[in-house]
């Protein structure tokens, strides 16, 4: 048939090429549609299997987690993957004895061996599931196998390996996670922060403080937000030292946002007169945490700052100072001659009234 169609276009090269491409694109279209159909069939089969597994096994898993026993249904090999997924999802929300009971069940069902085999699978889906399972099993013998995956070029895989290793040996892994976070721009702050927060290792604050003391400005900008997650006396002291030595305005602003306690008081006051408005704004906020009544005058002068954000933060801090009551506010408003200062004060007062009367978060 093709020959007769091609012979109809004669010897014209362009026409023959066009016809060949048209035929090819139509064939590819049919191929793509067949692929869509087969994906849908596979997806509906997988959904059916998952629903079946969930219906049979969820009651068993819930009972095991609660310390009860139920007879285990048969487990055909086709249902192992959906069951492992279900198990890992349930484990995400469990802690303590319930978690341990499900770990014991997983050992009995051979999830560990299977996960270890899949750790180096070429199929991402299997690797990801293996990492999720091993993270919950948290067996020290898996550390050696997980370690190389910490440097996997796929950030998702390396972060899942970090999660698993943190559960196996949090002290050793915290340091590695912090170092790799600095080396790998593809490791997101929010995810690393969540990992460290969940690991909740008391030594992580000291490790972070150590790196804060040694880091340069770009590294500091990545590390400082983590202080909010693993805060401790060591990080507070490191932030204080950083405020003394740093000169980069972005670093100063980020460090000011974390300043706590009375130690950095003088430095914060000094920075409230910094040339960069971002630093002044952060200092105005920080004065609310590290300052006191003595800083009222400083904050009042910041109400007339040329930058809106500095005025706004200063007004928020002023109105949040302990003992700064309605009478003080009236007196302050009456004494302000600068229109911008009066306007921002009125705005923040209204905001606070709204917050106080609000029902939403």
């Amino acid at each position: 048939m093709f020959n007769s169609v091609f012979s109809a276009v004669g010897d014209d090269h362009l026409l023959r090429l066009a016809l060949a491409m048209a035929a090819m694109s139509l064939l590819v279209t049919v191929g793509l549609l067949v692929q869509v159909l087969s994906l849908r069939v596979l997806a509906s089969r997988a959904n059916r299997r998952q629903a079946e597994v969930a219906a049979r096994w969820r009651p068993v898993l819930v009972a095991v987690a609660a310390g009860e026993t139920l007879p285990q249904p048969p487990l055909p090999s086709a249902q192992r993957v959906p069951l492992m997924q279900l198990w890992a999802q349930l484990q995400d929300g469990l802690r303590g004895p319930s978690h341990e009971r499900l770990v014991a069940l997983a050992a009995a069902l051979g999830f560990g061996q299977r996960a270890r085999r899949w750790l180096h699978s070429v199929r991402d889906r299997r690797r990801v599931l293996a990492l999720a399972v091993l993270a919950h099993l948290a067996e020290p013998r898996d550390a050696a196998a997980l370690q190389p995956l910490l440097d996997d070029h796929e950030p998702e895989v390396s972060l899942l390996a970090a999660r698993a290793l943190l559960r196996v040996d949090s002290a050793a892994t915290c340091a590695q996670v912090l170092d790799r976070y600095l080396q790998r721009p593809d490791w997101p702050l929010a995810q690393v922060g969540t990992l460290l927060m969940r690991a909740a290792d008391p030594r992580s604050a000291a490790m972070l403080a150590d790196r804060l003391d040694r880091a340069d400005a770009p590294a500091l900008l990545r590390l400082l937000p983590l202080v909010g997650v693993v805060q401790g006396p060591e990080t507070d002291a490191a932030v204080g030292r950083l405020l003394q030595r740093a000169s980069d305005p972005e670093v100063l602003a980020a460090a000011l946002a974390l300043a706590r306690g009375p130690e950095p008081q003088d430095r914060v006051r000094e920075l409230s007169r910094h040339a960069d408005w971002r630093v002044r704004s952060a200092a105005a906020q920080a004065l609310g945490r590290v300052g006191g009544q003595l800083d009222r005058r400083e904050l009042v002068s910041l109400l007339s700052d040329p930058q809106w954000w500095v005025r706004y933060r200063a007004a928020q801090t002023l109105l949040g100072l302990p003992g700064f009551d309605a009478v003080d506010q009236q007196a302050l408003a009456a004494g302000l001659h600068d229109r911008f200062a009066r306007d921002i004060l009125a705005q923040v007062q209204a905001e606070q009234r709204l917050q106080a009367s609000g029902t939403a978060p």
Partner: protein
Amino acid sequence: MMPSLDTVIDAGQWLFFAYFVGLNAMYIGLNLVALRVIGRDRALQQLDQGPVYGAGLEPGISLLVPAYNEAATIVASVRSMLQLDYPDFEVVVINDGSKDDTLLALREAFDLVPFPEAYRVAVPVQPVRSVWASPQHPRLRVLDKANGGKADALNAGINAARHELFCAVDADTVLQRDSLRRIARPFMEDARVIACGGTVRVSNGCVVEQGWLRRVGVPRNWLARVQIVEYLRAFLFGRLGWSPLNALLIISGAFGLFRRSHVIDVGGYRPDTIGEDMELVLRLHRAARARRLPYRIVFVPDPVCWTEVPEDLGVLRAQRMRWQRGLLESLWLHRSLLLSPRAGTVGWLAYPAMLVFEALGPLIEMTGYVFMALCFALGLMSGTAFATFMLLVLGLGLMLSANALLLEELSFHLYPRWSHLRTLALSMLVENLGYRQLNTWWRLRGTWTWLRGRPAVWGEMQRKGHAR
């Protein structure tokens, strides 16, 4: 005489052929990139096993909602926005001098009270007459300003925004509860990201209640059905393909997230343009590349919002003519990006592709169709040759549409029923057999009105989805 006419016809055929092959080669290339990106994300998405967020490190977001004569729908839209699943956000509605009761509807629904905002002007805008806030919803503020157009309203919102990230949202856009989480993710994953767009889906045929999408469906109207396939093509590979190359030129005005300081640095939205969304993205590219800043403008394939598309030919025509004008206007304003040594993938790949295949595309395509039809009618081209070229155009178009369906099936699988699939497959055929040619004609008319400097027509759209 005859040999020279033959030469002209031959040359015309080759040019038309080369254009179509080039156009489709570009789309196939974008498809391959999109397939890779979607394939990479699939394992994690299906298993939902990625390390989750929860450390409170999510950046705050200001949702900016320009509203002009939206009294019928604005309350439901704002109610749904206030319920978005995101830890730190505010909603700033900008009533852009509406002639209807938009402000009154908001005041009554949310018990708004006058708010003494110390309004700052980082970007010049039409006068802001008053600011309102809600004691029940401290996250909500409403600005009432003199009419200045969508871009001016967005600029007013940027001035009032409290957070470093702002999200421009059309008042009639239907969001998903996790829309902000999905679109904010690239900002959390890469500090260089300054703007992010997401996939806009068609809400016609879906069940929308109180501003929320309850069930995905396919509309009865064929024009809307065809636009589902068209949107899949445009977003799932048209935009996703450019994103890894940092050469995305458009972020939909219906829903886009931007770093406020960067937008203020470039002067905010331009109120004198029709395609203010594309113009801003081009300006951000231009400014960042001129200053050699490390930056990224990215796209997430996730369906972040749903919009109602026209079901009426007149409104659709006006929309497409307007889009074409916006495209031409933006490309013209930033013509210095074209093949500029500093413009990288934007100036050397995306801009030329957009210019040749999107801006000049309608002219070339329509010339090709007319040329072929004339040659055939005058007996200068055989019926076989004419049919072969038309078959090629149809074949390549169908292939790309089928690939968009595949990408959808691989990634989000939002049309679960077999009947949906059948309808979309048939829509592919309609899209390539008539709709595309009609669209080309409208875009050509849009090009003509832009060249003549005539004002754009907006068209009155009768919305249906939100009524439920």
